[in-house]
């Protein structure tokens, strides 16, 4: 009994684990830590603040410019139509063509 225990102890004492070295181990650990950090939406946004800030500025700029341009084009078109309508009412030359 004692002999077998001594053998086991001896075997355990001599046992050495030599795992192969993994060069990507450290990066993998950081990746996992990073993924845990993005577990919530605010955390994701915090992690990508710069990229989304640029995207937001560009998107709002384009949207604002487009809204303004469309409004101004419509104002311009309606104004042109009203000028013509107004002058048709005032101009005898147009009246002469229009009246039966």
């Amino acid at each position, binding site marked *: 009994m004692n002999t077998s225990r001594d053998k086991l102890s001896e075997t355990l004492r001599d046992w050495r684990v030599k795992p192969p070295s993994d060069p990507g181990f450290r990066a993998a650990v950081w990746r996992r830590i990073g993924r845990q950090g993005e577990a919530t939406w605010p955390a994701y946004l915090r992690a990508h603040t710069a990229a989304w800030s640029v995207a937001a500025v560009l998107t709002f700029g384009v949207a*604002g410019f487009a*809204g303004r341009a469309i*409004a101004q084009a419509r*104002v311009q078109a309606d104004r042109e139509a009203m000028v*013509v309508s107004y002058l048709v*009412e005032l101009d005898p030359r147009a009246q002469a063509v229009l009246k039966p």
Partner: protein
Amino acid sequence: MKYLLRTVLVLAIAAVAAGFACYHFNSAPELHAAARKGDAMAWLRTDFNLSERQFAEIQRLHEAYAPSCEEHCRLVQEAIKTRDELRKSQGADPAATAEADRALQQLRATCESAITVHVQQVAAVMSPEDGKRYLALVLPKIVDFDHQVAPDLTLARKHGH
């Protein structure tokens, strides 16, 4: 990935809202309403920031101008009719046709002068900036009206005085 899509969606909704806000603040609802109704006086009132007094004065000017406009209109119609009859008639005297053309051109020039004087009177009632803008809008069209009126007639919803 779901956060990326969620962020894109929120950004898109916010951008559409911003676009609508910019559209709203640059829009002119009263001008559009006047255009929809084809109401030239409402357009004048809103687009040139007329006060009640200015609007009443411009209405008075328009009413005073209307009879001469009608008379000019009648004379132009008669001149067109005379000219067209001369052109259609067999063996028409070329000198008479030319004379009819000349009379019509003279009448048109008279009309152009009358309407120019009228719009200058209207502009004088407005504030200097609005009057200047009004003249810049209408005077070029008056000068070119013979060329412009034909394609644009469909825009005029009502005619007469």
